């Protein structure tokens, strides 16, 4: 019995592609779990969803001409920022509308380019991801970018904490909230680059937001919340890999699906716990 169980658990990772996928999932879980906590604390979940979409045409463009994805993503963001700024100057369009229109348009443009019949194979993977198609070099790049995210988060920790706690007071404590926002958004862009090859642009937000949102329900302190978020992200990533392996489903979608499902279960459990702890009405 134990032998069968062992086979079920270990068999998928006998191949190199699955071993690389496992390493990638752990890296994504660490970077996404930690960064996701700050995204949730700073109430930037919508930005975390929208930012990868804004970067998408830049990423596809870079892939098409063989330029570094980092450069393409940065150009995509710059174009999106300029377009939002231009749209915001039109008096009849409010800021929310301009952001939504620009992000949707950018994403649509990226999808158009990625799914064009003339696009070379591999470009579509930027949309849906291909964690099983990663080379050792891809994993090494992800490890390097994860290290950058971890170091940056460690250095920024006190300022991220002060800004999330009380933005106005942070300014009087020697923190520049605008600069902290900018650096956090930059880190989200870097995390998108880590995630996009493995999970695809469509599923980046699931990894960045859902584990942290789930951990936020139960974490009693920032370090605990971060540890839980990383644990959820890694566990869901591995569960998604198994699901994909045995059910023959798309890997990125499987990981995103498991992550969101776990969040729904955690949110339900937190709700039940809150109802249980609520004092009974007086008779």
């Amino acid at each position: 019995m134990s032998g069968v169980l062992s086979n079920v658990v270990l068999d998928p990772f006998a191949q190199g592609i699955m071993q690389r996928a496992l390493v990638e999932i752990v890296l994504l879980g660490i970077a996404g779990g930690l960064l996701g906590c700050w995204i949730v604390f700073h109430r930037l979940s919508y930005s975390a969803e929208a930012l990868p979409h804004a970067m998408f045409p830049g990423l596809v463009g870079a892939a098409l001409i063989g330029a570094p994805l980092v450069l393409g993503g940065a150009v995509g963001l710059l174009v999106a920022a300029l377009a939002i700024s231009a749209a915001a100057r039109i008096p009849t369009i409010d800021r929310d509308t301009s952001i939504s229109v620009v992000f949707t348009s950018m994403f649509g443009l990226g999808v158009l380019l990625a799914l064009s019949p003339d696009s070379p194979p591999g470009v579509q993977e930027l949309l849906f991801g291909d964690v099983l198609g990663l080379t050792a070099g891809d994993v090494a790049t992800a490890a390097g970018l994860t290290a950058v995210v971890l170091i940056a988060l460690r250095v920024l920790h006190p300022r991220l904490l002060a800004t999330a706690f009380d933005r106005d007071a942070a300014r009087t404590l020697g923190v520049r909230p605008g600069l902290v926002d900018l650096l956090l958004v930059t880190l989200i862009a870097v995390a998108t680059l880590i995630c996009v090859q493995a999970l695809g642009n469509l599923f980046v937000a699931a990894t960045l937001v859902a584990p942290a949102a789930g951990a936020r329900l139960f974490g009693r302190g920032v370090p605990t919340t971060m540890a839980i978020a990383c644990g959820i992200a890694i566990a869901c990533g591995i569960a998604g890999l198994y699901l994909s392996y045995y059910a023959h489903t798309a890997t990125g979608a499987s990981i995103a699906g498991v992550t969101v499902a776990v969040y729904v279960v955690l949110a339900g459990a937190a709700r039940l716990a809150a109802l249980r702890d609520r004092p009974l009405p007086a008779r």
Partner: protein
Amino acid sequence: MSDDHPQMSTTEAIGAAATGGVAEVCGHAAAGDEPGRLLLELDGVAAGYDQALALRDVGFRAHAGERIAILGPNGGGKTTLFRVVLGELAVREGRLALHDEVAVVPQTERSRLDFPVSALDVVLMGTIAHRPWWRGAGREERAKARAALRAVGLEDRADAGFGALSGGQRQRVLVARALVRDSRILLFDEPFTGLDTASSERLQQLIDELAAAGHVLLIATHDVGQARGWDRVLCLNGRQVAFGDPAATLTADTLQATYGHDLLRLGDGDAVAVICDHRHG
């Protein structure tokens, strides 16, 4: 990221950029200064937002050991004055001189109570400006933060979640955060708002202790009765209406000029009631 001391650097920058106004940062006091030392000077200060002046003709001196109540209606300029002293708003006219560092104790309701930070974490935020941008809080900062919590009577609550503390305890944690910065000039933004009687009395006692220890405290409040118990009172209503000893300053006429229609006279004497909500201006 360059996060040198914000009040100092910001105020100096303002001094250079001000349109006719001057802001100066002078000598830095050592702990345990003699009572009565001049810490803050304003002379004909005016400041505002966009083109309009929100506050003008403000001139007073504040010394170590003084508890100064700042009275005024909503929109009367209390928050504007704080922002000027903190260096967030330019001095458009007149002169502001700071002879020590400034720290503000904001209202606790502005903090996120759902945020998973401990009381110690919050106090440690006060040490950010005093350490290099790449370094986190070390043993020295933690010891200092615990000492500040001890000073406000909350050492045993250091690891408690900020949101789990009572309103009065949260206010004292924010005082500890200001104390850890070694600032002699402390600005309190309506610190008694929402506190019960016992918490208010504890905070009042802490304010007295801080004044006795050589700080100058500028306390924005709507409580005229409380202001009568402190050392000085500054009345603002878009301009400085009065400044001085509470007994001599807080006459019904001065309060009428300060609060206008927000003031109810009770009977024929100086008894008054101020009608206020808690918007800021």
